[in-house]
């Protein structure tokens, strides 16, 4: 990894930790010195604006999640339920990133700059659908199953970020994974 990229990633780590503590709204008026320990000019070498920083953080998180999903999908020894459980745990462990995503989502509803990177097309379906189709699901069922799988995980993360009630939400997800195993078999018929 070249030095510039390492430096950029270090800035992102510091800024991500700062946002987790102070919230995204405070970023707009915070100094570069406070959020990353550098001058405004130095920060500008890597990022054009505060929105650019948030976009980079979210893009980095998205890559992190995508790599985890790709790894799980490529492992033939795993069932989809095991993949789902593992992906859920992965999101729970990355709760700060999800909070940032939901915070930015609210802003993106009225801010085109945020909208471009928050609402940009996800390629989750392109990754999940072929695996389900190989298992015998029709293209329509695969799309529906992937859509609802992602929806339940995101919705449960919204609940977790709002209430912090891991016991209730984890128990619900465990019940959901058990049910989705039966649902998956029905959809493959």
């Amino acid at each position, binding site marked *: 990894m070249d030095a510039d990229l390492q430096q950029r990633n270090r800035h992102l780590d510091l800024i991500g930790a700062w946002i987790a503590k102070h*919230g*995204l*709204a*405070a970023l707009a008026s915070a100094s570069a010195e406070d959020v990353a320990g550098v001058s405004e000019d130095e920060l500008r070498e890597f990022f054009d604006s505060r929105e650019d920083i948030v976009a980079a953080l979210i893009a980095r998180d998205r890559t992190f999640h995508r790599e985890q999903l790709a790894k799980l999908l490529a492992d033939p020894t795993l069932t989809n339920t095991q993949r789902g459980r593992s992906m859920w745990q992965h999101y729970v462990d990355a709760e700060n990133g999800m*909070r940032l995503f*939901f*915070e*930015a*989502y*609210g*802003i993106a*509803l*009225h*801010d085109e700059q945020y909208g471009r990177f*928050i*609402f940009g*097309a996800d390629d989750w379906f392109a990754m999940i659908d072929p695996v389900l189709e190989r298992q015998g699901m029709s293209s*329509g*069922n695969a*799309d*529906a*199953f992937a*859509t*609802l799988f*992602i*929806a*339940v*995980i*995101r*919705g*449960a993360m*919204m*609940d977790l*970020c*709002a*209430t912090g009630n891991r016991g*209730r*939400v984890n*128990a*619900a*997800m465990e*019940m*959901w994974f058990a*049910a*989705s195993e*039966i*649902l998956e078999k029905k*959809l493959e018929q």
Partner: protein
Amino acid sequence: MTRTVDLESRARLLERVSEYVVKHGLHDLSLRPLAQAVDSSPRMLLYHFGSKEELVAAVLRRTRERQMEMFEKMCGSDLMTEQAMHGAVWATMSDPKFAPYMILFFEAYSIALRDPKRFPGFLENAVEDWLSFLSPDRTIATIKLAGYRGFMLDLAATGDRKRITAAVEVWVDSLELLTPKKGHRRAQ
């Protein structure tokens, strides 16, 4: 008597203010144009609600109460199956007329995540009120709420109604897999 008049005029004002906030959202909300739109004044709004944050908190509470009343009325019949109930709730939530309410919810949720003190109780109530409505079993209710919220996030972001509605149909059919074998009734 004065107190009663005060409460009545606050309630009337809250209905008008809520309509305005649902239509315009929380972004850039300021008291002067709001007061003008509801035939009031910033001073009267502050007299009745205390501060802009308390006014927004009152709007969010009122909006949620109205939604709960609407859904409880819609799903109140004992003859309605679980599947029919969830189909009806989704049809209402995903109706384009409902979009401003959803946008207001996601905006408020986003702000409250950043700063929970701004709308005290909003995050907790946004989950708890729905859990009691969706099922007496909190585990099942949690899954149902996760589904609705996740589908709404997807719909607001992508607008891909066809794909999402197909997924909701599969999801609604699958909810019977979650239902406990005995004594399951909706919370009233």
